[in-house]
């Protein structure tokens, strides 16, 4: 099983769990499995167009998937995924 590490504010929707075991051969499949286990996460990770929100970064074994193949990046059961928010704001 692949592990996804959750950022602190989203642990509200994983019953406080910091790591979730998921299945899938790609990042997208792993995220889909995460959503199926904790469906309230979806509105915070995806926008209305079904795309990952701009502030959501996914790292696989320390590498940002935007520099790999995005959600099509291949993973293995030993991969460690980390959801990392970009924190931004202003007026």
């Amino acid at each position, binding site marked *: 099983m692949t592990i996804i590490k959750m*950022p*602190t*504010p*989203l642990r*509200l*929707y994983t019953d406080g769990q910091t790591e979730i075991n998921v299945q899938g051969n790609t990042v997208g499949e792993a995220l889909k499995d995460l959503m199926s286990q904790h469906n309230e996460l979806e*509105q*915070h990770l995806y926008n209305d167009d079904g795309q990952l929100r*701009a*502030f959501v*970064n996914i*790292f696989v074994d320390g590498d*940002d998937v935007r520099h790999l193949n995005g959600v099509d990046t291949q993973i293995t059961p030993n991969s460690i995924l*980390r959801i*990392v*928010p*970009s*924190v*931004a*704001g*202003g*007026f």
Partner: protein
Amino acid sequence: MILNISKNIYQQISNHLIDAYPNEGAGFLLGYTKNHNRTVRMILALVNEWETKEQTNRYKISAKAYMNAEDVAEQKGLDLIGVFHSHPDSPANPSEYDREFALPWWSYLIISINNNKVDHAKCWVLDDDRNQFIEEIFNIK
């Protein structure tokens, strides 16, 4: 939820944001939550990583800084409980841009800095459906 901040930590936050003025400054709030009270035990004052020419009305904390902050919190036995940032010469009300990038559960402390001085501060939390910020009570003790 009520956010509790000591005078000393609030001064640290203010100093960082005044140093950043007229640009926006930002950082993380680390602490713990018990029942409906959230207590700040330390802060991580961070560099604004937004491109320089727009730092007067934008701030950004990188993914790398975020990961480091979570690691620090874990080492200290604390949680990342929120973010603070300044609105230079502007009210401490969250903007649409703030909402777009906001995460649930966190406390968002916004401090208005006018002419190098703290003018006022407000604290906010995003509601569950992401539609709006709700003002959160905060105490400086």
